[in-house]
């Protein structure tokens, strides 16, 4: 595809959880330890009436669904602040520092005073119905492939709750995750093609990771992609499971928009219109269509249908692999609780429809040539809601691509409808906390710690001296630890890197819980190695014990008798060896003291 010709516009929003001790506005544990659920709270939320009569479709949508929200509350990771029962405390200075450091890494401008805001949240993911957020940086850039990609803004905000369960009536959220400090980095829409989006996301992720202030693991970084093409519409894609397929998914989204624009043109040519839904229950009293029969078993069961004037043949038009316009309309109906829709571009015989009942239906709807219909069956009230949503989507097809928030189907590599795109979320000041003046000293210190990727690359070159390992280490989650080990213990990078990159992977594959090994344990191991107290071979032996801390390392050395035999003791060993000749002597000693003897030292001693 020629993206330039299509008017491809693409920008990223990278959300990165910070590894701070506490949450953003309270002292709850932010590092997500295993926690005990201690209470369940049920809440209803409503879209707060909009100012100036503006109706936010997304908010109205959620209110219409009228879902109940239940919050699981935890012992250490949540307090009254999370469940909107107590005003926020002071802003977490550790988080602000990390955000400033990140801002400095992208050369951002910093306000003289931070103004904490409330951003309205309508999906219940925050018990207070808003998210606290502040702008901490503005107008920076990312050096990318010889040019600069603009970083429009950096925000410091609260993470949302985790979803435990979700259906059309009820959502259960876990508030342990809620309000963990999160940094959002927004790029300008300057990305030229899908492949580039992937690379820019990777690069921003690297810069954030190099600050050493971020959480690792699944869900700790999320990328939202904003995509549009000329005549299309801005669509926000959320929930990429991995970066690897991001370009393919964006590509398919562009294809979808291209198809929808073609459909729009055709519908406009046909002067297409959507008619209000009618009750068709009476027509299907004797039907053989299983889905309808099942729906009508219930006393409140109904069959309702809408006439889509001028839509004939277009509902079956493919917009993405395996997806038709009909599927897009069906997505909306599903949100009201419908199992889906039946439309006239499908093989209706396969459902079991009789010609007579279809003729009756067409007559009732007043259908003409080129028209289509959609049917929903089930509870009467649900049918009404489902067709209202479905009709709205059908109508939108004649106007073009709808502004939507879309999710990701990782198997099909396509985007899927989540909800209408919120129209500029309502934001207003968080009046429970005071504006926060920029602390010059903190800003200076954070700026000094700004990440310089080039410098890191040079450092790795100097330490590791192995191109492949250097590249691997640059992207490895162990980079921060690697730097600490090299800086604090003086251990040679050429020894540390293979242990962190290869040995750990091997052990993980062998089923060892290497994630249990604490940073302090690592520092101790390489510290002892640098001091000459243990050998290189003993390092792996200690790691096998997955020590949590320095004390556990000490214990592993003692109980495993891993102390290095060197100097005089080694000389004595060499003298006493019964081996014939130099090589056999070395072999004999090594076979008995493989973990305790440094091969180089030994071969220097044995004459």
């Amino acid at each position, binding site marked *: 595809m020629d993206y330039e010709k299509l008017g491809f516009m693409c920008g990223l929003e990278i959300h990165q959880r910070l590894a701070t001790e506490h949450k953003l506005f309270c002292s709850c544990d932010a590092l997500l330890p295993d926690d005990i659920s201690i209470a369940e709270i049920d809440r209803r939320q409503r879209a*707060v009436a909009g100012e100036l009569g503006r109706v936010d479709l997304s908010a109205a949508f959620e209110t219409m669904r009228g879902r109940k929200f239940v919050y699981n509350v935890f012992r250490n990771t949540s307090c009254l602040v999370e469940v909107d*029962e107590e005003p926020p405390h002071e802003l977490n200075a550790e988080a602000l520092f990390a955000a400033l450091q990140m801002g400095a890494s992208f050369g951002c401008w910093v306000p003289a*005073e931070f103004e904490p805001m409330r951003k309205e949240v309508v999906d219940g993911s925050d018990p*207070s119905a*808003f998210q606290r957020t*502040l702008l901490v940086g503005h107008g920076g850039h990312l050096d990318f492939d010889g040019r600069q990609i603009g970083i429009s803004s950096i925000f410091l905000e609260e993470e949302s709750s985790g979803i435990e369960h979700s259906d059309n009536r009820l959502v259960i959220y876990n508030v342990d995750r809620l309000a963990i400090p999160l940094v959002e980095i927004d790029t300008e829409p300057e990305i030229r093609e899908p492949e580039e989006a992937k690379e820019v996301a990777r690069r921003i992720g690297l810069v954030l990771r190099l600050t050493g202030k971020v959480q690792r693991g699944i869900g700790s970084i999320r990328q939202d992609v904003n995509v549009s093409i000329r005549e299309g519409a801005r669509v926000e894609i959320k929930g990429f499971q991995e970066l690897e397929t991001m370009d393919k998914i964006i590509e398919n989204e562009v294809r979808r928009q291209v198809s929808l624009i073609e459909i729009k043109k055709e519908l406009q040519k046909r002067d297409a219109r959507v008619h209000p839904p009618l009750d068709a229950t009476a027509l299907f009293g004797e039907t053989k269509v299983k889905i309808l029969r099942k729906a009508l078993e219930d006393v409140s069961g109904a069959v309702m249908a809408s006439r889509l004037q001028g839509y004939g043949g277009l509902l079956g038009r493919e917009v993405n692999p395996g997806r038709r316009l009909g599927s897009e309309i069906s997505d909306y109906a599903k949100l009201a609780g419908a199992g889906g829709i039946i439309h006239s571009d499908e093989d209706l015989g396969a459902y079991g429809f009789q010609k007579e009942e279809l003729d009756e239906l067409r007559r009732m709807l007043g259908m003409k040539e080129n028209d289509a219909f959609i049917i929903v069956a089930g509870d009467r009230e649900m049918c009404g809601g489902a067709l209202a949503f479905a009709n709205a989507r059908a109508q939108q097809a004649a106007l073009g691509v709808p502004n939507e928030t879309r999710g990701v189907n990782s198997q099909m590599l396509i985007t899927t409808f989540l909800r209408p795109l919120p129209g500029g*979320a309502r934001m207003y000041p968080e009046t429970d906390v*005071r504006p926060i003046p920029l602390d010059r000293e903190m800003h200076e210190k954070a700026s000094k710690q700004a990440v310089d990727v080039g410098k890191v690359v040079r450092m790795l070159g100097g330490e590791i001296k192995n191109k492949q390992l250097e590249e691997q280490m640059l992207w490895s989650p162990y980079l921060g630890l690697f730097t600490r080990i090299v800086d604090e213990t003086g251990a040679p990078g050429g020894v540390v890197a293979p242990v962190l990159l290869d040995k750990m992977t091997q052990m993980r594959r062998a089923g060892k819980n290497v994630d249990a090994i604490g940073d302090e344990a690592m520092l101790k191991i390489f510290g002892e190695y640098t001091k000459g107290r243990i050998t290189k071979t003993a390092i792996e032996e200690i790691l096998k014990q997955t020590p949590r801390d320095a004390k556990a390392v000490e214990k592993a050395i003692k109980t495993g008798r891993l102390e290095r035999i060197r100097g005089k003791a080694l000389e004595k060993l060499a003298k006493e060896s019964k081996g014939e000749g130099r090589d056999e002597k070395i072999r004999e000693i090594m076979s008995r003291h493989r973990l305790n003897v440094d091969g180089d030292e030994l071969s220097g001693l044995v004459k």
Partner: protein
Amino acid sequence: MYSREVEALLSKKGIAPGDAIRVSIGSKKFEGTLLPRPEFGDQGVLVLKLKNGYNVGLKLGAGSKIEKLEHAKESFAFPRVKLEKRENLPDVAIVATGGTIESKVDYMTGGVHMLVEPEELLAQVPEILDIANFKLVSPMRIASEDMLYQDWQSIARATAKALSDSHGVIITHGTDTMHYTAAALSFMLNGINGPVVLTGAQRSGDRGSSDAYMNLLCAAHLAAKGNVAEVGVCMHASSSDNYCNFIRGTKVRKMHTTKRDAFRPINGTPIARIDAGGNIEYMGEHRRVQNGKEKLRVESGYEPKVALVKFYPNSDPEIVDFYIGKRYKGIIIEGTGMGHVAVSPSDERYSWLGHIKRAVDAGVVVGMTSQTLNGRVNANVYRNLRLISGAGAIYCEDMLPEVALVKLGWLLGNHKRAEAAKMLNRNIAGEITERTEVDWF
């Protein structure tokens, strides 16, 4: 207000808050709406609302530029509902007195405003219009910590007037002193024949999670059809949006600074629980709506020279002399346990006994309550209790200290001293129960 320098610069350029402006600081340019300066922080920092909705604080320096782009658009208007009289619905009056429930944030500036029209207050929960026909009176709009007894008097009069042509009355009120007002109304309104329901909000109504919505709905259901002729508080029963409790005005207390279920019954049970759908479950004994309408009398007299004094280890009993000197007519002591104050401490200057006796001799009514709140005081179990009551302190049974204070002020405002003293520990408005049920605590 911005600092004098900034104000001068703004007025020179003809810029006022609400105007769209452009600020240039070095090479950076910011466009947005100028906001009023918050009270806190550096008054020299401009607060600008950017197009993405975020506010930022900008400090002008040498070489900074500021220009006006557009004059302020129409001022902010809160949404309103349309009030139409519907024949088949009961009449409910709202007496609006202020508090969080009536304040609303201007989303643009963050300024907090009072909702002054019923159409604005009810717009928070439009479905409330299906419950009753509403009329609204507003004797005052104040934060509840600013309430004085004169305010209780005007609320009492407004409520009595409203009750004459409504089934029930809702009083919207700040939560901090809601239980004082509830107690005052319980005594001042004699012979009411419908529900008088105080309600409020612990979380402001700018957010979709405010407790105001359910509190208002439950209060409306109760005021519209509740078979209860008492004054009480209707607020969340738990942290969940499941139902509200309606708790007698003399047995309710705010027991938490911030939680939505802060109001708890003390030495009693709720009268009823109400859900937002209008289901009312009556739980405790209560006065029902009477057929032959009893004449409602407002006894709003009040003697403000009454004090609530807390005893604690080493507390100086001369506080009692201070009030005697100030010609106070009544003192309620919040004693420890069953109603103790120090009687024979090693340093006798800390004994309250003589001081209490002096007060009683000077004509001050002295009542004894307990800082445990839960349970009943007793004048007999220990020798010290007998000495204190012997000195003339009146033991107030299971009455809450704040309720005893309000009651004493009301008694002294409407009755002679001797009669007031006699009535202090006799039940008038449900403030004293004869028996304490085992599951009340």
